[in-house]
């Protein structure tokens, strides 16, 4: 019974923690500009993250080592360094985006400019990370993030009609007033948001933090096979609500404040309160995850002691990297660069770097030295390889599309 409860809790945590500032921004913007015509990218991204997160969780549970640690050993320092540089840079941008996003949520509640909240929230994230136990921290924020389900309720109340929604999803290609280049650029952003590299680093390192073993592989599968797709459905609900309210009015989404409009229209203040609470919790969770991921990747690459399961004194360099990354991210957020723009760039650049993150995971998940007999099946390898090809195409296309579309303008 305890095991079932643990699995159920894990699923809910994965569900509530799936959506972060990148998903909120990418799905709302896309829904407003393309309706549901890019919903297939969310589905593609969710399947991709499910496949690779399962692999990274399995590698971590069976080898009892973080993915970066294993990648460095298996593929050598040079490949791992390229991976580290790309991942760390994108992760750093993501921390700034998450902290900026948190400040924007607080601004919506208080009306006080978000810049005043940025340093305070940076400190709050660090205090939680420093004081709270990993498992409590992960579950508390993940479960609170479930409050964003109000978006799905709002979509149901907006009543776009299930048939209309599915019919809109079947349209492949841009709307008449948009170009294929913009369509491709937004598709890349959505894929980057769904398959953000930090998710696998955090997921695998979290497995080590929670001392997963072979017996926990079912928890791993349940989290990713059920929790992540449910999170993906929430992303689609955000896109659907945006498509229903904004697209017919010619409104483009460029602020986090606009994300709450469909919920306010249908559910009033109570719904909005739930949404803001859920957004705060989910983005707070993501801020913690990205900050920890900065420490995980660097510490695992250099072979330092890492994790919150040991005393800070024993993992001093890991904590130093986390603190310095957070401080840098707070300073970046304080430059007055729009957090939404930082988010847009972080998810698009994340998409460009995806092969660097996922190729090594595919290699180590096939190596019996790390996973014993639990290597990938042929079918899984075929799908994972197909994804790598897609990710390579995406990586090559990202920068040219960014130039052609002037950043999706």
């Amino acid at each position, binding site marked *: 019974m305890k095991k079932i409860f643990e699995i159920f809790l894990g699923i809910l945590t994965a569900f509530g923690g799936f959506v972060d500032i990148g998903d909120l921004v990418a799905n709302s913007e896309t829904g407003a500009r393309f309706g549901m015509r890019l919903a297939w990218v969310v589905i593609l991204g969710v399947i991709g993250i499910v496949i690779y997160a399962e692999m990274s969780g399995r590698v971590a549970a069976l080898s009892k080592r973080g993915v970066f640690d294993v990648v460095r050993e298996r593929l050598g320092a040079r490949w791992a360094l390229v991976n580290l540089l790309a991942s760390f840079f994108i992760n750093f941008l993501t921390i700034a985006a998450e902290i900026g996003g948190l400040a924007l949520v607080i601004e919506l509640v208080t*009306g006080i400019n978000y810049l005043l909240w940025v340093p305070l929230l940076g400190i709050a994230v660090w205090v939680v990370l420093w004081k709270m136990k990993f498992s409590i921290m992960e579950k508390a924020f993940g479960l609170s993030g479930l409050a964003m389900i109000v978006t799905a309720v709002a979509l149901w109340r907006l009543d776009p009609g299930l048939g209309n929604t599915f019919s809109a999803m079947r349209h492949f290609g841009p709307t008449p007033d948009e170009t294929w280049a913009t369509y491709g650029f937004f598709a890349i952003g959505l894929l980057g948001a769904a398959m953000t590299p930090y998710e696998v680093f955090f997921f695998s390192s979290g497995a080590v933090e929670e001392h997963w073993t072979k017996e926990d592989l079912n928890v791993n599968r349940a989290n990713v096979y059920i929790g992540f797709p449910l999170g993906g459905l929430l992303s689609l609900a955000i896109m659907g609500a945006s498509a229903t309210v904004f697209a017919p009015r010619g409104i483009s989404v460029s602020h986090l404040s606009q994300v709450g409009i469909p919920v306010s229209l249908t559910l009033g203040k109570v719904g909005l309160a739930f949404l803001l609470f859920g957004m705060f919790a989910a983005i707070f969770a993501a801020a913690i995850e990205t900050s920890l991921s900065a420490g995980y990747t660097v510490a695992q690459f250099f072979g330092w002691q890492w994790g919150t399961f040991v005393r800070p004194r024993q993992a001093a360099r890991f904590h130093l990297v986390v603190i310095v990354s957070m401080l840098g991210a707070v300073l970046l957020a304080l430059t007055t660069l729009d957090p939404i723009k930082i988010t847009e760039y972080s998810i698009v650049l994340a998409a460009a770097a995806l092969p660097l993150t996922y190729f090594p995971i595919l290699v180590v998940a096939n190596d019996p030295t790390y996973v014993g007999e639990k290597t990938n099946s042929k079918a899984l390898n075929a799908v994972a390889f197909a994804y790598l090809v897609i990710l390579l195409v995406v990586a090559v296309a990202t920068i040219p599309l960014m130039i052609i579309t002037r950043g999706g303008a």
Partner: protein
Amino acid sequence: MTLRPRRRLLWRGSILVAVVALGAACVAPARTAAAYEGKAADSASSAVSALRTAILAAGLGGADRSFPPTVSVLLSEAEEDADATEAAFSSIQPPDPVSDQIRAELEPMLIKASKRLALLRIAARRADLGALPRLAQPIERLAGKLERFAQEHAA
């Protein structure tokens, strides 16, 4: 490849990425009448987006379906967007007399949009949410005009 050229390559690559990222966010000048017309249509669409966001926000505020600070932030951001659109469009050099006409038609509408949104923002910051629907009434007509302009001048 020795270490030094590789580092140089890495630096050049990083600079290229930074330039591309910054360049992607800039407004390019319009060298032809068609390009100018396209930018005018885009500016009108952006203004429509800001105005219709404000209409929704005003409706929510008036009906007590959102929190006053949230409505205030929504309206402030809509005004900022409209101001930015107006400033960006005004800064583009019209390349010929036809473009001058387009500018003469669009610019007053963009300025009007900014002014209307400022009135909404002022009322919201004074917590006078009841006044918002009344202040928002003329905005839909202006949004409709801008939308027609955007459709007529779209590429």
